[in-house]
């Protein structure tokens, strides 16, 4: 596994743990793939009312900008499409969907910091 994939994996673990611990979410899918791409985390909120599609961005430093900045307009469009695919694949005809971004900063030394942007787009 390449170093960046390893980093991404650890970031997603941290994010999933955070969402369950702090927000009481239940993770429905991790790294759900289809032809169009991959969704990092799909979860439901505390009240089991919303489908929360969560994009996790992990970086080891801010030299190339903040992690959350890397969620571009193109990525937003793709995630929206993937969310539809996910709902179709899980025979979920209608549900309220929310798109979150979790930015994880994991410096090589020192503790990881995590910023959660609920309803980011």
């Amino acid at each position, binding site marked *: 596994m390449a170093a960046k994939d390893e980093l991404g994996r650890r970031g997603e673990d941290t994010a999933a743990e955070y969402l369950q611990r702090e927000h009481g979410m239940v993770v429905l899918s991790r790294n759900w793939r289809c032809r169009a791409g991959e969704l990092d985390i799909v979860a439901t909120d505390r009240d089991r009312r919303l489908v929360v599609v969560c994009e996790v961005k992990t970086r080891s430093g801010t030299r190339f900008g*903040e992690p*959350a*900045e890397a*969620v571009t307009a193109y990525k937003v469009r793709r995630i929206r499409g993937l969310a539809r695919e996910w709902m179709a694949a899980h025979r979920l005809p209608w549900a309220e969907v929310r798109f979150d*971004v979790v930015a994880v900063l994991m410096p090589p030394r020192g503790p990881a910091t995590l910023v959660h*942007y609920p*309803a*980011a*787009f």
Partner: protein
Amino acid sequence: MGPPARVWSVALHGVDGVPVEIETVVGGGIPGVHLVGLPDASLQEAKDRVRSAVVHSGRAWPNQRIVLALSPATLRKTGSRFDVALACGVLAATGAIPADRLRGTALLGELALDGRLRPVRGVLPCLLAAREAGMVRAVVPRAVLAEAALVDGLDARGADRLTDVLEWAAGERELDRAGPPDTAGHGPAVPELSDVLGQDDARRALEIAAAGGHHLLMVGPPGTGKTMLAQRIVGLLPELDRSEALQLAAIRSVAGRLGDSAPLSVLAPFVAPHHSASIAALLGGGSGVARPGAVSLAHRGVLFLDECPHWPATALDSLRTPLEEGEVRLSRADGTVRYPARFQLVLAANPCPCAPPVDRDCRCRPDVRRRYLARLSGPLLDRVDLRVQMSPVTVLAAADERGEDTATVRARVLAARAAAVERWSADGWRCNAEVPGTVLRSRFLLPPAVLAALQARLDAGELSARGADRAMRVAWTLADLAGAARPGPADVDAALYFRDRGAA
């Protein structure tokens, strides 16, 4: 999401400024900068400039969602002039700088990536609009501080770097005001009229043109001093008053042609475009909102068209409307703008394509010769009051036949203009050329005995009604120059002599 921070800047629409309020909110979404309020591509690029400049000024850029709203939101905004205001808006919204000093301050300037302030065009009209809108201060790049200081009643400050502006906003330092205006000497020396050899007729015509604001056509072989004479008319014209000089400075500022050192020139402008200039260069043009052209840069001064038969007929005829109306209206995608364009037209032409020093040596066929000057359309020539034939130069040494110098002629011109102003001031006209024909034919109608020559020409069909009006205006100017209360028959004769179509 914090409360919105407000800062002010000024957009430019034609030669008018439009105050723009910039609201900034920070927070509530993934990091990014969103600029709303009809920004164009060059303004969208401001995001990257502003961010880099803020970081290089040692301030933290908020890693949050930033929304910058430019109001009025329906006005299309363009250019880099809002950079400083956007930077201050973002930092005020995060609380990095207090907003107290930014209230009532117009911020103008482009930012370099390292935080230096770069000059923008159109500062003068922008700040005039800011003052009208009740703003009391302005912060501008130092390079345009002299221009900004022309606006009375507005406390204009100049800054070199964004850091200076931010520290000033925080009350940690003061920014420089402009020094006393540099009034010593009015720019470049005006060419001297006595340099021109001979040409008594043309000199006289030049003096009449300067005194009455009449348009002038000079026809003559090359090297007889047409261009020299035209350049010397500026020295004969009165200085611009403050409001005219400000208006001209505003036009120049919008065109990006205002000098840094002494922006307020009281010298009448002299604009001489080359005959390859397009209509857009003459009248003004450009995409989006049109920029001023040569006719506006020559406002209250002289537009000199050398070799006028070589100009495209469409370009010359496009001058007809501004000549009549004293302004141009230009419509482009983003709206119609008006630019003032009350200029005096001076045309110069050779008599024919071969143009030998002495006219009788001409080798052109008669039809070629006729067609050459026929390129000047009738309607345009009809608007030219004074036409003069240049005589071949026969003297070489300037010593024996030196003509009058600029100061002498200028004194007569100013006296004549003062007489005209006294007569017309109640109606608001400044020189004889501006007086409508109807007034000359009613309230100021001359006795039939004086107008006999004019009437004869009209009866013979040699003169249009407008031509007759124009001849009457020239006659009034001749009377003003002679110090007479009203023109006599001799003045009307002289006016008709200078209108003689034989010259063209």
